[in-house]
Structures are given as C-alpha cells and as structure tokens.
C-alpha cells in the first residue's frame, strides 16, 4: 500500500498551473457546445407476432439482461369488497411458485443464479420482470413463462401474505407519514375513487385462491402486455425468444378496461388529523392537470419556479432558507395519464409554526398569479428542464423502459414526437404563459389543506407570527378522525 502511494505521488507533480486565468464569475466561463438528440422509440420497437409490442435494446457492456413486462391491469379492476386483490395477485405471482416449481425451489434456484424475479400490480398497471446474468437467459425465460401462465399461488405463501398484510395494517396510525399519504388521496380524489379504496382486514380475509386465479386469468395475456428488454444479447435472437415466450397462449382473457376518472376534489378548508408529534406534516392541495394538457409545459415551468425547483424555487427560499421553518418545503404538479393528478405544496414544520408556513406558501401562490416571474427565474427553470433532459435516457435500461411506458400509456402513438419536441416546447414558455397558467390553476381560495399533527399546539401558533386561520381558508377547520387500522372506519 505504502509503495503505491509513493508511486502516485511522483506522477502527480509537474502539472502546469494557471490559476491566474480563472475568471471572477462563472458566467465568464466558456463551455464547448453539447449536442444531444434523444433516441427514437421506433428504432427499438418490435411488434411481436405473438401479440405484445416489445422494445429491444441490446447493450454488450456487462453480462446482464433485464426483461420487464408491463400488464394492462391495476387496482381499478378490484371488485368491491376485495380491496387488496390486485396487489396480492401481483405479489404472489412471482413468490408463490409455479406449476412445476414449489415456491421454495424457485426461490432457491433464482437465488443461486443471483437472478431477480419480481412482480407487482399497482393502481393502473402491473409488471413482471426478471434480471439475470446473460448465461442464464433461457432458464430465466422458461421461469418467466411459467410465472405468467401457470402460477401456483402456494397455500403457505398465500396465508403468509395475509398475515403480513394484517400485521402491517396495525402500523397504519403509527407514523404520521402513513396517515398523511392515506388522507391525501382521499381528499384529492374523493372517498369513492378507486385509489381511496384501501384494503381492510375484512377485504383481505375474504380473498380466496380462486379470486387470485380469476384476476390472473382475466388480465395476464399477451394482448395486454408491453415488453422492455435490455442488456447482453443479440437483437434478432432475442426477438425470436420473445416470440416463443408469448406463443400458444391460452386462455384469451379479457380486453383491458379503461381506468376510471370519477374523482372528486375536497371542498376548501383545513383538514386536521390530531396526532401527538412535535412536527406537523402539511399538504396544500388543488386539482391538477393531465399530461396532454396544452398548458402542461407552462405549468411545469411555473411549478418549478414556485416550489418544484429545490433551492432555486420560491417556496424553498422563503419557508426554508429565509425563515428556517422546514427542512423540506416543495411543490409538485405532475400531469396525469388517465385522470388529472393533484397540485401539492407541502412541508413539515414544528407544531407552532405550521400555520405561519402555510401563510407564506399561500402568499407565494398568490404572488405568482399576480406578478410576472423574473427573467432570471424563468431562464433558470427552462435551462434546467432542457439541460437535464438527457437523463431520461441515461442507461440502456432506461431507454427500453421509457419507451415501453410511452407505448403502454398510448403516448407513443398519439404524440410520437413527445421527446423530440420536449425541449422546444419548454423553450417556448414565456413569462406571460407562466402567469396565465398560475392564474388558471392556482386558486388559493380553493385549497384543501391537510395537516397531520398536534392540533392544539398547531392552532396555538407562534408568538412571533400569529396567524388567523380564517385568513388561510374560507372553509374553516375540519377534523379528520383517526381511522381504525383494520376497517378504516373513523374511530370515536
């Protein structure tokens, strides 16, 4: 070790130093030009004869292959009373064995090969994937085929999953973060929207093996799949292997249903869940937008300036840097694919400064609707979007999965030039656009404010910054009761 150190030291001396040419400001630095063109989805897209569309991206750098299959299903397909069925089916597909392998045998084999097999079903999509060394490709594909077609849903794994779910339900009220997540969805989308229909002990208890089999049979067939593959393989050979993977499939299953859109945003007001912690978690919410909304780009730039851009954004500057009221203060406004998502400005602050910070956030929301943003702000936000754009395609795996997701959600066909045009659309956003969309979507008098924390301390406020609750909302303060962790019914 010591010897090496000396050798390197010798090599290090003698570098020329011209510290004198260092400019006084970074704006004076000259940078070489950087040209970047995003990859095109069509270059990797293959319509398999066996049904699915696949994105095949070879990369010989490392002896690894990653295969992922997106499935058109989701929580929205759960029958009433069977909440939790989608997630349970998704989990047990890869963890409950297959027709010819018990769960234990399959897990042991995969572990020995250092291969990862995963599956899950979320709100609006499912996925099954395998990540393995390229020497094990054929064995991995055979396992994948069995998982997709003849899952075992082994009894002891089925029971274990239920026990684990019930066990984790017990922690539903322990961490204020979990309460926040649950109530945010309910306020933003309404109690009746499918995203709010969380599993209960009764719904988990009622799920049977035949429910799982039915859910699997209905939605897991090649007509509902979009595939992404990247890694160490020959493209032609891989396409042939994929054809085989999806050929001779029975039964046919069902055509995917459209994702419901019947959401309902809460009435204006402050909604408090009383929980004894010394820091309140806060979400200031408004209805959001769809990603294909023509205002999408302007809204992203506006949000970046308001609270999406980290330290260069207004909310972070005021709530964190100026006032020291929070470690994390932010806003986000993603575009929805199937239904409009939610605008959220959030932070966590000690009980007694929760309301003061809310006042500041609302002030900033009003201000951005009333005054044009500065040149510096809009230039920073736009430059950031434009220059970080190559990150979407940072790895070959990202190329495959990004395009698979575009195909899955339909944008690849209805807006095939999305990536090609992204930067020019951002570039075209003006200060007037930012103010216009702020006025259109940020309605401070319509906000629903969710607070999880110590109600009494929070409403007491801080002696240096007293805030009248009515100045924050016309809707008044409403209590959200803690919910029974098993039934999710309000606790008295």
């Amino acid at each position, binding site marked *: 070790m010591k010897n090496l150190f000396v050798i390197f*030291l010798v*090599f*290090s001396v003698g*570098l*020329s*130093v011209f*510290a004198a*040419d260092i400019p*006084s400001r*970074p704006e004076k*630095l000259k*940078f*070489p030009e950087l040209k*970047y063109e995003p990859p095109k989805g069509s270059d990797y897209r293959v319509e398999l004869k066996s049904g699915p569309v696949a994105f095949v991206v070879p990369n010989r*750098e490392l*002896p*690894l292959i990653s295969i992922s299959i997106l499935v058109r299903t989701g929580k929205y397909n759960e029958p009433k009373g069977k909440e939790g069925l989608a997630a349970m089916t998704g989990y047990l597909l890869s*963890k409950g064995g297959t027709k010819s392998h018990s769960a234990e045998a399959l897990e*042991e084999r995969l*572990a*020995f090969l*250092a291969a990862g097999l995963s599956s899950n079903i979320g709100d609006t999509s499912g996925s099954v994937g395998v*990540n393995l*060394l390229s020497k094990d490709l054929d064995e991995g594909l055979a396992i994948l085929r069995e998982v997709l077609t003849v899952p075992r849903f082994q009894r*002891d794994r089925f029971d*274990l999953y239920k*026990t684990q779910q019930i*066990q984790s339900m*017990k*922690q539903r*009220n*322990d*961490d204020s*973060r979990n309460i926040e997540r649950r109530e945010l969805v309910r306020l933003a989308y309404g109690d009746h929207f499918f995203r709010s229909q969380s599993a209960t002990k009764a719904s988990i208890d009622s799920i049977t093996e035949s429910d799982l089999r039915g859910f699997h049979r209905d939605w897991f067939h090649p007509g509902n799949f979009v595939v992404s593959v990247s890694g160490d393989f020959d493209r032609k050979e891989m396409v042939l292997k994929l054809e085989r993977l999806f050929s001779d499939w029975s039964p046919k299953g069902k055509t995917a249903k459209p994702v419901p859109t019947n959401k309902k945003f809460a009435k204006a007001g402050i909604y408090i869940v009383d929980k004894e*912690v010394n*820091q309140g978690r806060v979400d200031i919410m408004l209805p959001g937008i769809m990603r294909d909304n023509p205002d999408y780009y302007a809204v992203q730039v506006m949000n970046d300036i308001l609270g999406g*851009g*980290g*330290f*260069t954004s207004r909310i*972070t500057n005021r709530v*964190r*840097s*100026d*006032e020291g*009221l929070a*470690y*994390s203060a932010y806003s986000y406004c993603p575009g929805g694919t199937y239904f409009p998502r939610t605008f959220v400005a959030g932070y966590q602050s*000690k009980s007694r400064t929760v309301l003061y910070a809310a006042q500041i956030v609302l002030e900033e929301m009003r201000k951005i609707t009333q005054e044009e943003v500065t040149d510096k702000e809009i230039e*920073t936000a736009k430059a*950031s979007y*434009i*220059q970080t754009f*190559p990150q979407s395609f*940072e*790895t070959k795996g990202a190329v495959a999965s990004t395009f698979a997701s575009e195909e899955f959600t339909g944008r690849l066909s209805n807006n095939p030039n999305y990536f090609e045009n992204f930067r020019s659309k951002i570039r075209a956003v003006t200060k007037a656009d930012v103010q216009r969309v702020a006025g259109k979507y940020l309605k401070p008098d319509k906000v629903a404010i969710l607070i999880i924390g110590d109600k009494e301390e929070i409403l007491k406020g801080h002696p240096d910054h007293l805030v009248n609750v009515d100045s924050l909302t016309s809707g008044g303060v409403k209590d959200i009761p803690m*919910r029974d*962790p*098993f039934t999710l019914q309000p*606790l008295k």
Partner: protein
Amino acid sequence: MRAILGLLLFPLLLGAQQVPVKEHFLSNGMKVLLLERKDAPSISGGWVARVGSVNERPGITGIAHLFEHMMFKGTPKIGTKDYKADVKIINEQERVRDAMRVEERKMREMWRKGEITDLQDPDQKTDKWNKLNEEFKVLIEEHRKVIVKNEFDRIYTSNGGSRMNAYTSYDHTAYFIDVPSNKLELFMWMESGRLLDPVFREFYTERDVVFEERRMRTESTPLGKFFESFNSLFWESHPYSWPIIGWPSDIPAISKKQADEFYATYYMPQNLTLVLVGDFEGKAALTMAEKYFGRLKKGEGLVPDVVTLEQPQKAEKRFYAEAETNPNIDIYWHTPAFGHKDTYPLSVLAQVLSTRTGRLHKKLVLGEKIATDTWAWQGARKYAGEFNMGAEVTDGNTPEQVEQVIYSLVEEVKSKLVPAKELQKVKNNFAAAEYRRLSSNHPILMQIMRSEGLGNWREINEAGPKIQAVTAEDLQRVAKKYFTRENRAVAVYTRKPGTGGGDEDPIFAGLDAQAKAMARKVTSTINADKDLVQLKKRLADLEAQMEKAGAKAPPVMKVIRAVLRKRIAQLEKK
C-alpha cells in the same frame, strides 16, 4: 458424493469486475480519483472530506452536519451583491449572538434550577434574550438586502446541474452533483470556490432548518428517538455514541466561530478527495483540477486522529422500549472496522442469514411462523463495526421468544459448517452485484466516495476477491468470536398501550376491555410455557368447562382455547 456436489455447484466463474479508477494527487496533497465512462453526456462529480461526527466533541455535536449545510451558502463572489456590506452584517450578527450566548448560559443555569422547563420554548426566553433577538431579526432583514438567495444552487441549476446534494456520516462528508459533460469547468470553478473561501451566511436560520430536520428524522417518527437512544447505549466510549445530527442541546449552541475552526482543521486539501465519474478526458480533467483545486493551501501537519477506541463490552446490555410499532427484536454485536479481515466473512454470514432464502426467513417466517419480517446485516464504520439481526414478531409471540430462536440459529452456525452450496449461493450474489453496481455514473460516484470516506476507495475492487475467498470455516470462526452474550446489546420493542388505533390484536376483537386484559395476560403465560403436557391438560380442562357452560360460555374462553391450540401445535412441530 464430492464429485456430484461439485457438479451441482456451478460457481459463476466471474472474473473480478474491476472498476478502473485512476488515482492522482495534486501538488497540495489533494487526492483525485477519475473514472471515464462514455455512456451518457454527463459527469457525476463530488468530493469527500474525511471528517464526520466522530471528529466532534460534547458541546458541538452536530457541527460536521451543520457545516455541510453551510457549504451551500456561497463565497465572496457567489451569494452577495456587496461583499463588504455582507461581511459587516455577518460580524454585527456575531456580536449580537455573543450577547445572546451570555443569556443562553444564564438560561441553562435557570433550567438546572427548574426555573425554566424547556430551553426551546419561545414563551420561556428571558426578556433580554428576546430583546437581543429583535435586534438580531433586524440584522437578518438587512442582510437579506445584500444576499443573492441560493445563488450557488441557481448557477448550477441554470447550467443543467442536477441531483446536487451532500451528506454527513459518522466518518465522512460528501458533496456531489451531476453536470452535462460540457460543464466540467463550471464544476471545478464552483467546488474549488466554495472550498477556498466559504462564507457562512444565514448561519442561525440554518440551525433552525437542521432542527426541523432532526424533528423530521428522529423526533416525529415512531422509532427515531429509540434508535438514537439505543445507539448511545451500544457505543460506550467511542464518539459514535452521539447522533450525527447532534444533541438538541448542542445544535443551538454551535457558534459561527466554532464552524470556522472546524473548517480550518478538517477541510484542508490533504484531507479531501475529488472524484469524477463520466464523460470527460482524464488528462485534461486532471490539469483542470490542478488549476482550480491546486489553489487550496496545503494545511500544516496532520489532521487530528480519532484516538478513543470503543472499550470491549463487559456485559450484555438490554433496552426495553414501548413504542408506536409492532413488537420486534433488534440485536447488535460489536464487530471490527472497515477493511478488517473479519468483515468479509461477517458480510457473507449476514447474507446467509438474511434474504428470502436465508436462514432467518426460513426458520422464523416460513418455519415457526413467529415473525413476519427478518433482517441481518454487517455494517463496518471507519473505526469500528456492528452486526445486526432482528425480526418483527407475529401475534401471540413475544420478542424474547423470537430472540431465543435467533440465538439457536447463531449456535448452529457456530457448531456446524455452512454447506458448500449455501455458501456458493451467497457468493454468486456478491459476484453478480459487482456487475449490477456499474449501471450508471451517479451510483458509481456514490460508491467510490463512500468507500473512500470509510478509509480506502480501493475496497470497491479489493473486497470482491476477499469475499469469494471466504470459507465455511471462516464463518464459523467469526461467529464464535463475535456472537457472544457479553458482546451484544438487545433492543426489545413492544407496542405502547393505547396506540395502534383499533384493537392491536385481531384475536381479541369483540372482547370487552376487562376480558381483553385478562386474555392478554393469559396469552403471554401460555406462549411462555414450554411444557406440552401441562398445556394439553389446560386445554382439556378448558374444553370441559366450555362444554359445561354451553351457550353461556364467555367469549374469552374461545379466544384462550385458540391460543392454547396454536401454542400446542407450535411446540409439537419442534
């Protein structure tokens, strides 16, 4: 037998996957690590300061982390419209703060006498402190007029910088960002600038931010405060015993002067390592590094060493916590520091025990069904290490019961060699991970910085072969050496009564409060009972009673019957 076994094994036969990092030193002793990768038009860059919370002392705990926050506040050139006015206001602020510190000293004395109950409570400050605070607020307002808010961040952001962040650990502090590949010089300008002459603006507001960070991470989470307390129990003499974020008494007491001293002591170039990963040309990058970072003046002498060793533990330590959590058991043993030869078998052993095909899951979750989740890991810090095993306990069992089963697994490792195939499975996963870690620039940068911060970046290449060389005998040896009773500390978590919302145990649902309390008590005695004959007799007696009572049998009997049956089944399976 031997031959067949050999055929079954199929070791992965991977060559050691070296990460071709090039090491250099600048003229002032600063280390530079370069890794060229041409995957994407970007560079992940960062630097490590070999200083962390271990270099602190009581009274200034949390300073390494607070300092990290301050490094984003700018320089004489970045972050101000008028540097002269800026410095004047900062000095003025310090004058007021010195006076406030005199008051804070008085308040601590008042607190000792019980005249104040909470030093943080805005309602309990002295009048003089409040008056000085008003004065200070005026200075903050004045300062805002000359500050250019978060300019350091804005320059990077408007140039396509992303993922800018930093972290402080027990042993090291790391700062990092991704920039487009044509912005390497901007990175050099910015980073060398803040190292050369950082200006600690908004120092006291940032302390409040750190306090909110502490509330968020430690105080307002179900287990944060217990983990912090347990950590302090586990480490006795070593500076690892205090939290990285600092004790709540210390954070508000840290002065700017102390931060200046900290900088002068630990941020000298020979204590720093610059790391670049991505699309650049090595030689040009090195020349540029010398031009920019070569400006840092080499410090006098050596950085102070961490002298205090953790004293060998004398007796088992136990920690009982009632928390808003499902019951669980969490056991820690002292193990050696990063790079010690025993850390490799310990890392392998952790994998033998953890994962879905590991021994803990198979025995506790799938076999005895007394846990829903298990974990095991070996964590090497720079100066000493820890090995952790634990489990979340299922209903009807106690953490102590699960603890005993974990010890039986430990004893098994001590008494029987781990079979070849099981060992090979674990090694295969280590070997594959050597490839998987090379996915993209940013995670590679993080690994190099972490390894360097722990003592030696070369471990990213040298650990792999050492792991592959571990034998079953090594596993047995380290298990015997470290997994002893007097070397462990055990945390037992049970649910705090009255939390968990509805009924914490579904088996008791429907019982009234009195019956519930009784059922709970009886259940714990049943589950602690190992006498099968006695249990069966109790069951028979109970069933006879129930038959006699018929429809009038109270529901609690049914619950107890179920508990008895479950316990009997459990014991019979053993």
